[in-house]
């Protein structure tokens, strides 16, 4: 089956066309631009161009897989509403994937893994994995707090790694952002089975910054 994979939870605008069968996902074409301000502009053209390179059209798409964060607010929604609208118009399912799971899915091996991405405002999003399964997270925290909390880390992946001061022995593996194949792999067997997808709910992990107004400010001099 033909799967359209997309993610806008990191500074990358990620679009890919993946073929999926019993052997697993295989990349046919991808378009990736790293520009945190370009999600709105480039995502749909990237999807269209990747499909064209794969020799396919929108009508050939059987399923969509979409990273649902955690990601710094605005760009994340561009990807999610794109996935929702495409699924609606093409009448195909759209499967949500935690974007950190998609990064983890690209890292081979059973050893413990920590995935960290940039949450901006001097914080990181993270989740930890054992034998490919998420055992903690996703959470948002300051790097120092994360390091203090996590006793031992041996392998790390994701674009937030450089924001944390990991001990020199820690091995950096994997990619900075989810890949189309990682997204499809993380979405798992429901895609191939054509199971009903879970709702496309964004993982914001933060409440909106908004303050309720306090007492009225006076304009007259007392």
């Amino acid at each position, binding site marked *: 089956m033909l799967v359209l994979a997309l993610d806008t939870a990191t500074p990358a605008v990620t679009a890919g066309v993946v073929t999926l069968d019993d052997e697993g996902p295989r990349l046919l074409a991808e378009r990736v631009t790293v520009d945190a301000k370009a999600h709105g*502009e480039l995502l749909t053209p990237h999807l269209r161009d990747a499909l064209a390179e794969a020799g396919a059209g929108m009508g050939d798409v059987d399923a969509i897989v979409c990273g649902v964060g955690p990601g710094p607010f605005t760009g994340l929604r561009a990807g999610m*509403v794109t996935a929702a609208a495409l699924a609606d118009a093409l009448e195909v399912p759209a499967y949500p994937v935690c974007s950190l799971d998609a990064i983890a899915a690209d890292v081979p091996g059973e050893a413990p893994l920590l995935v960290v991405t940039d949450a901006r405002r001097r914080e990181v999003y993270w989740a930890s994995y054992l034998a490919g399964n998420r055992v903690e997270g996703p959470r948002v925290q300051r790097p120092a707090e994360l390091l203090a909390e996590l006793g031992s880390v041996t392998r790390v992946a994701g674009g937030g790694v450089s924001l944390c001061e990991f001990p020199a022995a820690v091995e950096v593996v994997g990619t900075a952002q989810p890949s189309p194949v990682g997204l499809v792999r993380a979405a798992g067997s429901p895609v191939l089975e054509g199971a009903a997808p879970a709702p496309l709910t964004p993982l914001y992990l933060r409440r909106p910054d908004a303050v309720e107004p306090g007492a009225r400010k006076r304009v007259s001099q007392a």
Partner: protein
Amino acid sequence: MTGKVVLGIESSCDETGVGLVRVDNSGAVELLADEVASSVELHARYGGVVPEVASRAHLEAMVPTMHRALRTADLRLADVDAIAVTCGPGLAGALLVGVSAAKAYAAALDVPLYGVNHLAGHVAADTLEHGPLPKPCLALLVSGGHSQLLRVDELASKITEIGSTIDDAAGEAYDKVARLLDLPYPGGPPIDKAAREGDPRAIAFPRGMTGPRDAKFDFSFSGLKTAVARWVEARERSGEAVPVADVAASFQEAVADVLTAKAVRAAEELGIGTLVISGGVAANSRLSALAAERCAAAGIQLRVPRPRLCTDNGAMIAAVGAHLLLAGSAPSSLELSANPALPVHTISV
């Protein structure tokens, strides 16, 4: 069935709007559906629109609102011939949701996409109620975010700003004065209601930008708001009760007076015979009554769409799309992006 179906998507502020219109070759634009999901209640406790809250609500509401509109019109997505979307002006994060959705729908359905100006949408709203606009006409747009006088020569291609607020928008002044009077948000409707019991001549509040040296067609509402605040505070200091109805009526009179006086003067000086008033504040009872009175005296035809079409909605955006289609305008590229500061003369991008 003849004619083309245009889908309109609006998400510039706190309303997720999806509208459908049908346009035929004669230029008639028929309203088929106008569905709106508002997040206004989520913003009420903050006393104004919180961008992140609005953006989150747009993402949740987009597809359900689309389905409601299609159901109302008894159409399927496959029946849509073109898509129009607000690409500015407005809140960046909010616009992004509508623009991204519109691009995905256009790509999936393989139909042309038009990124359009929200303000042109407010003008086009009137065509859904009263038919084609005479050329030229004058439009007074008054909402929570905008207060502008526009000369509209051609809805699809030529709109010129001839005046605008130099500080607060008219709706914003209503919202701020409502807070001073302990009335709920949004402030327009409760002030309008309170004013009915009050005396509009009780307090002489200033008419901003009406001095001989002031720009003839620009507005200012920030001084008015401050004058109301001073007056209310003086009352409170003296221990007297604040006469809410009189303050509301006198404030409302000042707003309606300035807006209508400037609009009528502009129409007369520019020799334009029709005034359209649109935007959320057009729902104000005193504004429409005074505009009707003054337009009648000046021999100007007044057009005000029903309140439902005055506030933000997707049908007005579909109507702009319909006019672009009729005019044979080039569609936007799929690289279209939101422009929070899109100038009013850029009707489509």
